[in-house]
């Protein structure tokens, strides 16, 4: 390679990438719109390639120049509408552009071959020539032997070179160009002089003669500021049989002084032979009518100064645009302003310090805080890049893939302008490509399959980016065949990803996430199941490395959505600083769900050991714990109470010593208090999430939350594996930043295990209810779902009136009878305060009040009630809430014990109460829904699952069915199908209640024959639905 100026080369690469970044999209637009394509698109494309060619020419990057020239030729034809851009043409253009980008990425590698691409492009033009036959066939032999005919070393070309002009040698067929167009040789010469400087010609171009048929072709040598022979040809209305544009390297070298200075008046001239004849691009131009030459355009890419040659040795390292960042001027100005402000603050600070004015110093401190934050934000901004840069490439990926697979796929891109840190944008390209390819390859069906399923033949893939709660979400949605949970489970069991028992209890959503499990991704899984899975664990971990998370949702036959959540930036990390022993660690906030403080006896009570692993139960969720000190292998010390010195702690962590009876630990809350149960021995559990998984990290102490500046890890520390970086804290200490994924790995938390915890936690969060906690002054604590409570009144005893041995509350001028729980169920004790009591008025028919001594709390609890332990009338089940035994009341039962006819008399208008079959497996919901239904006067029978329901339906008659969807043995969907299939039952109106994801479950339920679908958390909606369908059934 010729020596070149390093700086120019870098500039060229950066600029070329920028120009080519839109080229691909433009070609795709051309392909889409065909001949009707917007001319601006073609022009932009043409300019982009042209500029690259110009730069490459100046820097003597021969292959780039050749290839871009070929591309330009084809684009030129498209631009002047002489070439119809069919898919074959665009395919070749795309290939050529790919190669061009590759050349630019490896700009210093001269060995890359481009002949295939150049030939492919040339074929287009040749083919067109043959097809149109517009141009006269060129006698190959004529003059070919003598082309190029001129020995450049004989000419003084220095001026042209200095001015960055291009030297052309062209062969003109005089029979067509002169005789055929009625021009004399002289006119031909003048034409050529009009566009540049005519240096020499093989024929005398001053004669007036019009040369006719059979005349020998004439070679001309001329220079021009226009570097594109097609434009010259077009502009002059002269077709060249052959032409050659000499590259700067082929020209005689001007002297060294001129090189260095790029002055026009070069002194010495080198007589060195420069003309190494490379193959000239042979192009036959169209006979296009002459028109004004857009001379300015070809100049756009030219910088004569760049022709100056420097003799810097080419370096081996790859140069690339990724080393530089372009910053918008307003942003730079803003940063400069802030820097100026910072200097101002410093000056003020120095004055204030000198005068020891504490008040001013603290004011300046605040100012410093503001300026620093702003400066930091602005500088971060310089690293932000729109995701569009990555997104745009997928149009091509999807197009190529669709073409290869014989599918029709439409890729919709939304939110290209959403910005992410440069490093993140660069790192998401590969995993995203994987996901997009998967969506196109395995998600979208073939057009025939799609039509058979009643879908549009064209598949749709949507790639969108949007902001949500301080993070960027990227979503890939396809409308393909979706994932089949059952198939996924089967495959997972077969692959040994998880045992059958676990697979059986997975929800659909958990089943989808199986595709991210390591070991699941095999080619076999792809053919068996619905297709996805190759390397998906790698994709997931790639996003996790960036601090992101991946989730997936799907519906069979409808499509799949993959959601990726990513942090905006990696450089500054909001973190929680914790200590273990004397060491500080930073845990990124994005990983943290919540923090739990356990102290005193709670440490023993709430941490249990299951299967040799410590677990913690938090609001019904159970998740594994990792003691950071153990994971990191740190020696434990404790403060000896007497001496106050740190000594090695030889004891094992407390719960280890009672592994045997760990299962009963719930009942051990009054267990023996040991010496270590002081505040000093409190622990903090940092509940962290990793993707969809959750576990607890036990640390000694919390320090603070801090926005830490991440410093990369020393190479020698990478083998520790537990850390992702270091940070200097505000007090000058160094904290290691924990890599939560690595900590989980070191702590031996396996996928299935975390999934198990996750599953139970998710189930509870889905099936959870807010309950009102109250007591009657006795030992028991009672709970009532808040959705059943109409009102809670604090009343003084004075407002309570007694008549006929019954208590009534004067409530809004209405007498509301009061029920005391201990009267209904004598086994409960009660001791009410003398002055004030509370009255809970449930939503159940006519108002009635339940007397409470104290209202304790409202709390969200999971609905997995213990129905076996406490057997008592009026009680649905029990549950430990905050360590206290809590009884869930059956309001209807309690009221009826005191007022037996309360509910039936409430609906006297109705001749017979509607009989409703409630199908529900959870005893809690049984009680809850039954209460609702009794409240509207319905007579309710309960079945635990579909099988039981069918038995009841066979023996009794009902007016309607309210059913849960997910139940053991037989679920609601199957039940509905069977009911609809049984002639004598088919008329029964059915309402589905479910906590499943509404978007998918609703349509399934409706398909199966339910008249209405109600989420479980919406009792009012459910009651409305039930009332309306009962009305339908009575009128029908």
């Amino acid at each position: 390679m010729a020596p070149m100026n390093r700086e120019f080369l870098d500039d060229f690469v950066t600029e070329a990438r920028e120009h080519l970044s839109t080229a691909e999209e433009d070609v795709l637009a051309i392909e889409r719109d065909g001949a009707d394509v917007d001319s601006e698109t073609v022009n932009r494309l043409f300019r982009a390639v042209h500029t690259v060619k110009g730069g490459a020419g100046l820097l003597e990057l021969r292959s780039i120049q050749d290839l871009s020239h070929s591309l330009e030729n084809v684009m030129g034809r498209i631009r002047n509408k002489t070439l119809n851009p069919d898919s074959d043409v665009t395919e070749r253009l795309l290939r050529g552009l790919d190669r061009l980008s590759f050349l630019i990425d490896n700009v210093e590698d001269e060995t890359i071959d481009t002949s295939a691409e150049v030939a492919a492009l040339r074929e287009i033009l040749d083919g067109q020539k043959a097809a149109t036959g517009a141009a006269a066939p060129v006698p190959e032999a004529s003059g070919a032997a003598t082309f190029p005919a001129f020995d450049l070393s004989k000419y003084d070309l220095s001026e042209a070179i200095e001015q960055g002009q291009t030297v052309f040698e062209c062969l003109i067929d005089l029979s067509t160009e002169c005789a055929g167009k009625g021009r004399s040789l002289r006119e031909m010469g003048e034409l050529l002089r009009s566009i540049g400087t005519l240096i020499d010609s093989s024929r005398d171009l001053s004669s007036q003669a019009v040369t006719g048929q059979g005349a020998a072709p004439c070679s001309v040598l001329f220079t021009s500021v226009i570097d594109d022979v097609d434009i010259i040809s077009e502009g002059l209305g002269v077709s060249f049989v052959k032409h050659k544009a000499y590259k700067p390297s082929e020209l005689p070298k001007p002297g060294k002084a001129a090189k260095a200075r790029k002055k026009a008046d070069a002194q010495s001239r080198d007589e060195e032979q420069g003309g190494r004849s490379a193959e000239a691009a042979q192009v036959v131009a169209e006979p296009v009518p002459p028109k004004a030459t857009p001379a300015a355009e070809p100049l756009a890419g030219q910088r004569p100064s760049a022709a100056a040659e420097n003799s810097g040795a080419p370096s081996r390292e790859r140069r690339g645009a990724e080393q530089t960042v372009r910053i918008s001027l307003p942003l730079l100005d803003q940063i400069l302003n802030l820097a100026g402000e910072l200097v101002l603050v410093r000056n003020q600070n120095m004055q204030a310090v000198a005068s020891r004015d504490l008040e001013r110093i603290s004011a300046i401190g605040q100012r410093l805080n503001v300026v620093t934050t702003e400066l930091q934000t602005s500088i971060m901004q310089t690293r932000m890049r729109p995701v569009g840069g990555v997104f745009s490439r997928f149009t091509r990926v999807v197009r190529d893939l669709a073409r290869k697979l014989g599918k029709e796929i439409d890729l919709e891109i939304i939110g290209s302008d959403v910005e992410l840190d440069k490093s993140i944008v660069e790192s998401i390209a590969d995993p995203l490509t994987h996901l997009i390819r998967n969506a196109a390859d395995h998600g979208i069906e073939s057009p025939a399959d799609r039509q058979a399923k009643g879908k549009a033949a064209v598949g749709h893939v949507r790639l969108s980016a949007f902001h949500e709660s301080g993070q960027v979400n990227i979503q890939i949605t396809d409308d393909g065949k979706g994932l089949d949970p059952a198939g996924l489970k089967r495959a997972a069991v077969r692959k040994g990803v998880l045992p059958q028992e676990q697979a059986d209890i997975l929800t659909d959503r958990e089943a989808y996430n199986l595709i991210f499990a390591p070991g699941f991704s095999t080619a076999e899984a792809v053919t068996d199941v619905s297709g996805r899975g190759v390397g998906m664990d790698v994709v997931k971990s790639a996003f996790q490395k960036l601090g992101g998370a991946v989730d997936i949702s799907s519906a069979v036959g409808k499509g799949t959505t993959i959601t990726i959540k990513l942090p905006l930036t990696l450089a500054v990390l909001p973190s929680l600083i914790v200590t273990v022993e004397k060491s500080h660690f930073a845990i990124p906030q994005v990983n943290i769900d919540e923090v739990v403080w356990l102290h005193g006896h709670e440490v023993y009570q709430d941490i249990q050991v299951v299967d040799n692993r410590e677990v913690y139960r938090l609001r019904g969720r159970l998740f594994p714990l990792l003691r950071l000190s153990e994971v990191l292998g740190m020696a434990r010390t404790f403060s000896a109470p007497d001496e106050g010195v740190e000594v090695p702690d030889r004891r094992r962590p407390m719960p280890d010593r009672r592994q045997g009876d760990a299962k009963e630990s719930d009942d051990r809350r009054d267990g023996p208090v040991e010496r270590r149960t002081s505040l000093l021995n409190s622990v903090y559990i940092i509940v962290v999430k990793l993707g969809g998984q959750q576990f607890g990290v036990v640390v000694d102490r919390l320090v603070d939350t801090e926005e830490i500046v991440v410093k990369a890890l020393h190479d020698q520390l990478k083998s520790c594996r537990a850390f992702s970086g270091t940070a200097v804290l505000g007090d000058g200490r160094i904290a290691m930043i924990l890599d939560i994924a690595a900590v989980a790995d070191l702590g031996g938390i396996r996928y299935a295990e975390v999934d198990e915890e996750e599953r139970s936690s998710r189930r509870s969060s889905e099936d959870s209810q807010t309950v009102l906690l109250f007591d009657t002054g006795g030992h028991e604590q009672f709970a009532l779902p808040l959705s059943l409570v109409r009102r809670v009144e604090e009343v003084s005893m004075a407002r309570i009136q007694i008549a006929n041995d019954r208590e009534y509350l004067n409530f809004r001028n209405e007498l509301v009878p009061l029920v005391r729980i201990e009267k209904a169920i004598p086994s409960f004790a009660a001791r009410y305060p003398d002055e004030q009591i509370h009255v809970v008025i449930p939503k159940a028919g006519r108002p009635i009040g339940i007397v409470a001594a104290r209202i304790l709390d409202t709390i969200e609890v999971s609905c997995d009630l213990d129905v076996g332990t406490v057997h008592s009338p009026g009680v649905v089940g029990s549950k430990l809430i905050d360590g206290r035994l809590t009884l869930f009341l059956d309001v209807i039962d309690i009221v009826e014990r005191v007022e037996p006819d309360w509910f039936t008399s409430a609906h006297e208008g109705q001749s017979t109460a509607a009989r409703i079959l409630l199908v529900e497996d959870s005893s809690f919901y049984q009680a809850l829904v039954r209460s609702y239904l009794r409240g509207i006067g319905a007579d309710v029978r309960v079945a635990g699952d579909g099988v039981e329901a069918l038995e009841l339906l066979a023996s009794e008659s009902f007016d309607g069915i309210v059913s849960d969807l997910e139940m053991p043995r037989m679920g609601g969907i199957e039940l509905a199908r069977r009911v609809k299939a049984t002639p004598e039952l088919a008329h029964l109106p059915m309402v589905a209640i479910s906590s499943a994801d509404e978007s998918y479950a609703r349509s399934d339920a409706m398909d199966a024959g339910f008249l209405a679908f109600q989420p479980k958390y919406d009792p009012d909606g459910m009651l409305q639905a039930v009332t309306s369908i009962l009305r339908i059934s009575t009128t029908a």
Partner: protein
Amino acid sequence: MYGFDIDVVKEVNPNTDITTVPRSEPYIRGLVNIRGQVVLVMDIAVIFGREPRPVTVESQVVILKTAEELARTHRDDPEFDVQPFGDKPVCFLVDRIGDVVTAAASEIEPPPSHLKDRNVRHVRGVVNRGGELVVVLNAGEILASRKSSGNALGQG
């Protein structure tokens, strides 16, 4: 008594407030904060197969130049391999700092033969200073040997 080529030393700092790094190699003492820079502290004694040195009031850290800094100062010396010095600052924990002495290249004698094989490449030579022998260490070699072992462990 040990010596380093002063060209590779960036500074000597009395800050030995070392943050230990759990799970790190034994020869790594931890990290120190030198004016906001996080510097890795290595213990040469451990590298030489001896017990770790205790940190005393006299202890100091000898901070080495990074590859980039050395590339600037050693531009004229193509033989000098800057790569082992890495892109992040590293320092050695030393018991105390003696003096800066000048030794002509001819004064540096080859390392004595009784040095253990594995340590011999860490030593550039020996200089006699007033009857006392100063072992001149080859910082680049020490770092290079650590780097390779560190990487090997990282892959395991």
